[in-house]
């Protein structure tokens, strides 16, 4: 191995802010070790404030370190002074970011190049020849030696800075963002120059840049720095081609030219550390992600009403210690089911409203498959307007699906989930269609061979037999129905929902729905809204389709949905245990229980529960650690049944 020229050993650098008030300390570098070997280019990459410039300054002895040891050419830099320090400094060169700012505007180029040699008293008989040689080496003409910095372009100034840096025949160069202020074409010239100089003078570089392209182009080894700590350090090729850390992957994704913006999943500010588009639905990321979907998936806004109709407030009576038979208190059940929100409305009054995990009455939460129920209600409207009939064949509206499994299915078969498709709804299986759909919709990173976009995905689905025979829960059906809705209304799904439901229903807060890069909505699970607004959908069922004096959906449709489908969901074993004799109608689950309760459920514990007998609506948002679990479902059912039968 080549000898080490600079080594940093457990270096820490703390800055203190002075001034009035409380003094603050800021750790720019935290316990950082590295070695710069002879003849290598070591790249340091990171964002602003990651400590990369401080690292360079500490390594080259420009600023002292707070603790730890910096060794340069085998000497502890904090222990040497006087001529010994000057000898070390002579063997170092520096190139900084802004060449115009780092060159003295009053000096001629020839003097700028000569200055380090004069300082180190390196006079020889061919002093002026050496200046000319250096200038020609970095591509400056002898005429330009007579100019001052303002008479040169940015790229030429940076050449002067480089000539200056190599004038004392140094062995190591500190390059702090050497090309950041330059045009790409000039940057290419400077990078080529630096590369040539290194082989010619066998220099080592400590190259600092925020630009991964520059780093990866030039350096042998790369260090990724974040918050003063090493995120990843190793051979450049392996870091670029096979990054191990999420932060490095994010940097690589964020490069310009790394792909069309619209295919990018992670885009917005303040993602939590360790955020991964493939993991956000899982614990613990879902605790944050379900309230912040718009920060990493493209969304469209479903506008709220300009004349909102808020819920009547009523003083809540104590509910936390009420016992649910055999399951413990309500409070303890909320705790064990990772609750984000619980809202109970009885006879038009809020009787329980409880938020956790940083939520409040204005917080939106991802509905997951509760979104389907909203589409069901929308279809009641579309049918009433005569825009479609549920007996229509799907391909009458979307001829593009003629070659797919939907070719012979009807709208009502999609609404009631009796389309026979090859579709696996196994949430944790990467080969399942539901995960493929997530990837098509930019809910996960797309893999090679995935269909881009929701509509092409729907077109790729194949049939598995006779439609209308058997219940098969298939999320894609809802997205298909949203496509039809957009087609018959000639508008975006978000606008359709806003005009036909959000505004007439007087919903208070703008909601969002995730869309793919072509603007197609993920109607089966992409809506985020507040618990209070969602509960309004329950009110529709209790008031025969009315919200206040406003008729939103036909009374007939409400009755038809509450009655359920003739086709029961007995084929699914755990559903039979949950609600024997239950069915699925118009995107809602019908329990056929004593009180005729109906509900919608989304993975990871999202619910709206309606008990028409006791006039109770329950909304619960949760972030369970698993998508589906029969024990969680049973516990929720028990909780909802008992709450609705109590009088608050």
């Amino acid at each position, binding site marked *: 191995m080549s000898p080490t020229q600079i080594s940093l050993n457990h270096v820490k650098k703390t800055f203190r802010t002075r001034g009035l008030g409380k003094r603050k300390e800021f750790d720019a570098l935290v316990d950082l070790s590295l070695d710069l070997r002879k003849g290598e280019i070591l790249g340091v990459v990171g964002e602003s404030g990651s400590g990369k410039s401080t690292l360079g300054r500490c390594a080259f002895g420009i600023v002292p370190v707070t603790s730890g040891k910096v060794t340069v050419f085998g000497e502890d830099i904090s222990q040497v002074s006087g001529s010994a320090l000057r000898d070390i400094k002579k063997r170092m060169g520096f190139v900084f970011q802004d060449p115009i700012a780092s060159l003295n505007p009053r000096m001629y180029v020839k003097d700028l190049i000569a200055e380090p040699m004069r300082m180190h008293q390196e006079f020889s008989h061919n002093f002026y020849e050496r200046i000319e040689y250096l200038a020609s080496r970095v591509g400056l003409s002898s005429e330009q030696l007579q100019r001052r910095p303002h008479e040169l372009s940015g790229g030429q100034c940076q050449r002067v800075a480089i000539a200056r840096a190599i004038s004392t025949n140094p062995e190591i160069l500190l390059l702090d963002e050497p090309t950041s202020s330059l045009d790409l074409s000039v940057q*290419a010239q400077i990078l080529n120059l630096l590369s040539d100089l290194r082989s010619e003078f066998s220099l080592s570089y400590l190259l600092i840049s925020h630009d991964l392209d520059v780093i*990866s182009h030039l350096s042998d080894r790369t260090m990724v720095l974040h918050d003063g700590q090493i995120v990843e350090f190793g051979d450049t090729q392996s870091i670029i081609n096979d990054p191990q850390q999420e932060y490095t992957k994010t940097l690589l994704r964020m*490069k310009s030219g790394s792909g*069309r913006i619209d295919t990018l999943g992670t885009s917005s*500010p303040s993602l939590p550390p360790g955020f991964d588009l493939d993991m956000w639905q899982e614990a613990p990321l879902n605790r944050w992600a379900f309230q912040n979907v718009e920060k990493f998936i493209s969304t469209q806004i479903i506008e709220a009403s300009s004349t909102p109709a808020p819920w009547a407030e009523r003083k809540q009576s104590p509910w936390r210690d009420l016992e649910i038979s055999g399951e413990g208190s309500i409070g303890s059940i909320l705790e064990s089911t990772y609750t984000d929100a619980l809202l109970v409305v009885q006879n038009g009054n809020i009787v329980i409203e409880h938020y956790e995990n940083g939520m409040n009455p204005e917080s939106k939460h991802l509905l997951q498959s509760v979104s389907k129920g909203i589409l069901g209600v929308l279809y009641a409207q579309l049918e009433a307007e005569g825009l479609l009939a549920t007996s229509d064949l799907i391909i009458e509206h979307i001829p593009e699906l003629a070659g797919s499994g939907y070719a012979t299915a009807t709208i009502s078969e999609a609404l009631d989930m009796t389309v026979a498709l090859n579709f696996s709804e196994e949430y944790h299986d990467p080969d399942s269609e539901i995960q493929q759909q997530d990837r098509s919709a930019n809910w996960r990173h797309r893999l090679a061979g995935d269909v881009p976009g929701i509509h092409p995905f729907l077109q790729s689905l194949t049939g598995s037999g006779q439609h209308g025979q058997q219940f098969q829960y298939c999320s894609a059906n809802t997205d298909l129905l949203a496509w039809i809705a957009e087609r018959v209304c000639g508008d975006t799904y978000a606008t359709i929902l806003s005009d036909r439901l959000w505004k007439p229903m007087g919903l208070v807060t703008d909601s969002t729905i995730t869309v793919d890069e072509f603007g197609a909505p993920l109607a089966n699970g992409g809506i985020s809204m507040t618990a209070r607004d969602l509960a309004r959908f329950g009110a529709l069922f209790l008031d025969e389709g009315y919200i206040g004096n406003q008729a939103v959906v036909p009374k007939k449709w409400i009755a038809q949905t509450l009655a359920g489908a003739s086709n029961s969901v007995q084929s699914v074993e755990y559903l039979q245990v949950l609600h024997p004799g239950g069915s699925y109608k118009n995107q809602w689950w019908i329990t056929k229980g004593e009180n005729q309760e109906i509900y919608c459920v989304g993975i990871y514990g999202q619910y709206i529960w309606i008990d028409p007998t006791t006039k109770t609506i329950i909304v619960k948002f949760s972030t369970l650690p698993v998508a589906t679990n029969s024990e969680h479902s049973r516990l929720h059912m028990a909780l909802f049944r008992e709450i609705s039968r109590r009088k608050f």
Partner: protein
Amino acid sequence: MSAPIIRVSNLAVDFASKGIVVNTPLRGVSFEVESGKTLGIVGETGCGKTLTGLSILNLLPPNAIRRGEIWLDGHGELNSQNMADVRGVQISFIFQNPHSAFNPVFTIEKQLKIVAHRQGLDHHQGERIIRDRLKEVGLDDIDRVLTSFPHQLSGGMLQRCMIAMALLGTPKLLIADEPTTALDSTIARQILTLIYNLQKQYGFALILISHDVGLVSDIADNIAVLYAGRVVETGTTNLVLSDPKHPYTKGLLQAIPSASVVRGGLTAIPGQVPANTLTIVGCSFASRCSQVQASCANDPALKEIAGRNVACGVVTR
């Protein structure tokens, strides 16, 4: 294909000193942008990119003389009379360095309100729309942002404020001049995504000016490569960047460093953009071009080659 929002034809700018034209940095630029589409303008420093943006809004210094036609949908040809109705209302501008584009002695709120007033919004409407826009551009702590002075915000936050400011009205066209050059690459990506999403939402036409071809390729539908005050190649982004025809476009693309290129193998374009474009005879790129021929002494006009327009006398297919 929808109708263009803006059509620029033969736009040229002269700089005069004591009544004599001393410099012609823009020598006849033509393009059009449709509603909801993005045109990327790329080129090196000194090619006239920023000047193109500024001359659309007639924000040129007093010694500049603008020639050519700029036509805006619904307003006809833009001139100094109707410019007042258009500037900042129909056409918004995002400047490169947010720290120098905001006035340092007024709070963000004050500056946004001035623009809101300009859009014809009353006090209450203005306040509501300012808050809405700041939320849309991804700022969280809006009260703090509003009461801050520009130096108290980071570059990324300030650039978000500027985008919010540009969208207080409902512009038909947004001109973004190097909107991310002063920012970190991760922040830059966020800002670009934001602009993209807002464009999807509001449907404005976008002119994105940048020296970074990679950045432009991430968002632009069409691209115009500018060299020495002229468009040398223009067409759909995909076509131009995947198979560049003009030697200058090729050079720009080869200058982008990446891990896949062997070290030292960057093909830099030798030399510089000609400083005084007044005296150019023939092809302006000839002095730096590796394919130069005797015929390059003639000024090449834009002509269609392989699905896009190229101004080169040598390239034929």
